């Protein structure tokens, strides 16, 4: 636990000084949310749920996808930058040399990335609610568990592949290419849950997506913990 805390604290402290990860994620997420919500018909998401007006259903169906695609791409940028911090000065080699359980290395790094992603979400989601004219009380309480479980999945995949692509020549290209197909279940699940909230005001039978998201989290957290040592090795 001391190791996990040391790693997560190190990343957060370095970020507080260097501001190399979170601001990039936040600005990118906000720009995407801004652009995508303006692609929706004006007022399409404004009608009170659970009884949407005619013609707003399609907008609500895709609104979740717009939000989570924005969060995913903001996350990918941040995960790449976060891994670069360990590459500079070959600090990742310092981690490899230390007598530390690779699972702890992965967990510490993942917690740091999760914190950066959360900061981006804390700004992007209210902005989404604002620009899309969604009544906050109809969406935000239900969205909290979706954000928790989906963010964990994105951070789990992003941390693993952020580290894996650090030795690649075209790492900034490789990271989204590798991460996007793998993160699709998270993006789809979180999008479905968010859209369902917007349409019905509750999850109903779509709540089963939580099972998929949880299973995804468990699989990738385990995979990351087991393979991280080999992944960061040159």
């Amino acid at each position, binding site marked *: 636990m001391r*190791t996990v805390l040391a790693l997560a604290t190190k990343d957060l402290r370095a970020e507080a*000084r260097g501001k190399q990860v979170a601001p990039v994620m936040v600005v990118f997420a906000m720009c995407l949310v801004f652009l995508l919500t303006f692609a929706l018909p004006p007022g399409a998401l404004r009608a009170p749920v659970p009884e949407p007006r005619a013609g707003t259903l399609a907008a609500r169906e895709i609104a979740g996808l717009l939000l989570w695609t924005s969060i995913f791409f903001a996350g990918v940028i941040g995960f790449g930058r976060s891994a670069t911090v360990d590459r500079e000065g070959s600090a990742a080699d310092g981690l490899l040399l230390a007598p530390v359980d690779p699972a702890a290395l992965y967990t510490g790094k993942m917690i740091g990335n999760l914190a950066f992603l959360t900061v981006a979400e804390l700004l992007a989601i209210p902005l989404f609610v604002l620009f899309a004219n969604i009544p906050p009380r109809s969406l935000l309480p239900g969205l909290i568990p979706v954000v928790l479980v989906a963010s964990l999945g994105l951070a789990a995949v992003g941390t693993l592949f952020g580290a894996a692509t650090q030795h690649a020549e075209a790492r900034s290209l490789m990271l989204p290419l590798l991460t996007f197909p793998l993160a699709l279940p998270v993006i789809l699940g979180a999008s479905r849950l968010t859209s369902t909230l917007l349409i019905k005001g509750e999850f109903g039978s779509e709540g089963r997506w939580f099972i998929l998201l949880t299973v995804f989290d468990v699989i990738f957290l385990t995979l990351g913990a087991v393979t991280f040592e080999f992944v960061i090795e040159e």
Partner: protein
Amino acid sequence: MILLQDVSRRFGTVWALRNVCLAVEEGTTVGLLGPNGSGKSTLLRVAAGLLRPTSGTVAIAGSAPRERKSRIGYLGHEPFLYRYLSAAENLRFYADLYRVDRTLIAGMLDRVELTHKGTALVRTFSRGETQRLGLARALLHDPDFLLLDEPFSGLDEAGSNRLPELIARPGRTVVLSTHDRSRAEEVAHRIVHLTGGRLEPAAGHPGPSEGRPV
């Protein structure tokens, strides 16, 4: 003892090390000399467990380097430091990873004459200061086996003169690479020469015993 037996390492089509055999007795210091690209850094990285050999075996105190991590100190070309953390924060981080008492950090900063820079961010350090802090990181957990790749690099005359005293400790086994033969002779009990990835004893120094590694 540090023991490399028939170690080879290939990067793509290039062999960086070829059938290297090296035995470093406990408590001794070996100087590794060789021109650029001769494989010195690769040898030290393989010995530290940062690179896996393509063939052959490495043993530190009878086990693979990865099983002896807490007893190995390594300083490479890069310092393994975080630029946006201060000197003391970097050492605190590594103290936590190696489960070393944090109260030792002040003393270590003093040993490398960086007490006055304890709260300064590493990104503001000069090359020599970064090297000294990297050395402090490598020594923080008081390793029994020390692997130093060009440790004199970036150090001024005074810093270079203090280095032998910093790394010396009874029972500590050291392998250090350098271009500076006089520095190597000053520190090392034995000098070996690496050329084109092959190891040979340097002229005028103890050579290999019959049938044993260099």
